[in-house]
């Protein structure tokens, strides 16, 4: 059994009636990696996750988990566990019984399953809340119960559907750290669906950017950020200017662009459309004379040496080695 990969997708397709939700995607997720499926809504990322979990039938192609073809297997025999976006905690059961649910289904005696459930509640620091009902917990606590309930099944792969979307921004960053810590400690693969590029960049070993049912780029976040393959990727992950040149489109990181005077170096002329103070940086939005939009992220110290205001003429300059050619459409 080839277990170099926890999950392999082999030209997996999902059709709903006549519309194609996922179009022949192939992907290999190495053992023990944190993989983020990233993309705008309707790109097929959640459908892909649900096909891996077995909650959605695969129209064509194969799903392999730990080297074994699980395409036709029911959810429970796949070695996956899913954390739902709504958490789907059973409202009539206490946290302890929620976490112990899978053990109860396997016929494990009450004392034993409660002992194990307490261990997993401790793992997410909720041992004091064992007897509470889900409705008596905050959103963040509910999420941790859902996590414990999924992990107690000892999955090979944990599937997370937009796990942070219901949390407030401050908590989101704390929980994000917690997820990454758990993934490292448990050494299993996490597949995390999100539409937030910040989240994906912070967490992922493997970042899979999807659009219209296709995988547009799958690589380490740094690779994706430094070498986006297409204008779509460059725009979606943000922080880039996409500009046309005689040799095709290029992407330049906004923080590598400066306001200056044209000369021999690459530059583009335009007018300042907006100035936003962002603390350490000032974001200057430009409308170029060619009609494109461009942004310079200027360190505050540099900006205030020669501030500009909306309506001013301005020139965006960068160095050649920061320009990255976009190879795909």
């Amino acid at each position, binding site marked *: 059994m080839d277990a170099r990969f926890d999950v392999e997708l082999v030209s997996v397709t999902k059709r709903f009636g006549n519309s194609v939700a996922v179009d022949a995607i192939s992907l290999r997720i190495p053992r023990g990696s944190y993989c983020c499926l990233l993309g705008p809504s309707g790109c097929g990322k959640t459908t892909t996750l649900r096909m891996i979990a077995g909650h959605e039938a695969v129209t064509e192609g194969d799903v392999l988990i730990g080297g074994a073809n699980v395409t036709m297997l029911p*959810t*429970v025999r796949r070695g996956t566990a899913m954390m739902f976006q709504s958490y789907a905690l*059973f409202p009539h059961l206490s946290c302890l019984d929620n976490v112990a649910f*899978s053990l109860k289904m*396997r016929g494990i005696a009450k004392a034993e399953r409660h002992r194990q459930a307490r261990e997993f509640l401790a793992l997410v620091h909720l041992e004091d809340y064992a*007897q509470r009902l889900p409705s008596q917990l905050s959103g963040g606590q509910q999420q941790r119960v859902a996590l414990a*309930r999924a992990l107690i099944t000892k999955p090979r792969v944990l599937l997370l559907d937009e796990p942070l979307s219901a949390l407030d921004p401050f908590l989101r960053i704390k929980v994000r750290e917690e997820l990454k810590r758990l993934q490292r400690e448990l050494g299993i693969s996490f597949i995390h669906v999100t539409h937030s590029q910040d989240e994906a960049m912070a967490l992922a070993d493997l970042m899979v950017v999807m659009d219209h049912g296709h995988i547009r780029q799958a690589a380490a976040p740094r690779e994706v950020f430094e070498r986006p393959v297409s204008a779509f990727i460059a725009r979606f992950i943000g922080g880039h200017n996409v500009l046309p040149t005689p040799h095709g489109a290029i992407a330049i990181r906004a923080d590598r662009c400066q306001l200056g005077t044209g000369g021999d170096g690459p530059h583009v002329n335009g007018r300042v459309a907006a100035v936003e103070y962002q603390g350490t940086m000032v974001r200057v939005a430009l409308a170029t004379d060619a009609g494109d939009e461009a942004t310079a992220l200027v360190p505050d110290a540099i900006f205030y040496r020669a501030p500009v205001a909306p309506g001013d003429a301005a020139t965006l300059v960068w160095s050649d080695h920061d320009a990255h050619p976009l190879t795909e459409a």
Partner: protein
Amino acid sequence: MAFGSSRARGPSEQRPWTFYALGTLFGAYLLFLYGPMLVIYVLSFQGPNGGVTFPMVGTSLTWFRDLFKPGQMANIPVSFSRSVELAALVSALTVVFSVSAALGFRRRFPGSGLLFYLAIASLVMPSLLVGFGIGLGFQMLGLPQDLFTSALGAQLTWTLPFGLFAMFAVVNRFNRAYEEAANDLGASAWQRLRYVTLPILAPGIVGVAMGAFTLSYDEYARTTLTIGTRNTLPLEIYALISSATSPTLFAIGTLTTTTSFLLIGVTLVVVFRMQRRRATAAN
């Protein structure tokens, strides 16, 4: 709501005259609704020499005692227990069928729309006609008409569509992710139903059971043409009204109302206990 009403009242804090007009109308409606019933409850305690109208000639429990004297009156205690047995069976069958149907209807299948309309069509059919048809059918087939055959069937034509409607509303609010989570956690189809779906739907199911029970308990039009020889309580009362007039009728009214309130009370206590147990488990 508090916000809305304070805004509607405006800065002067004074209610407009329409408030008092509508309030009076509503008071009149309540009087119209409950006044006659109150009269019945009071008159059921009429003295032994009194009649069916005021004034009261002393007070007594004579007419209640009359009810339970066998042979003299129509057989009220026996018909009451028949009604309760029938209502319990109707309620149980309605719950079983409407819960399974509502769960099944979540998945659209060819002809599901047609099937749904066929199932609820009997709600709009004239009730006497339905009863008549069933009675006639039993006669043509030479089957005996009785409490637990034709009458049961006739009542189900009324309670099943009602139960289906109610369960549709309950099931619509049910998040499918609960079932997917149960699958994910290794529950078999039966375990999923037993430990997840039914417990979450339980309050709605209790409601449907109670609704079906009361619909059956005071059903008249469908039952009267299909009952055979053993009357239910509403039929017995109707027979009584048309044959004799004495405060016994009022005593029946008082007694059946008390029964209904007892039933509602017991259900509320059960539901309250269930919630309490959950809350205690939580502390």
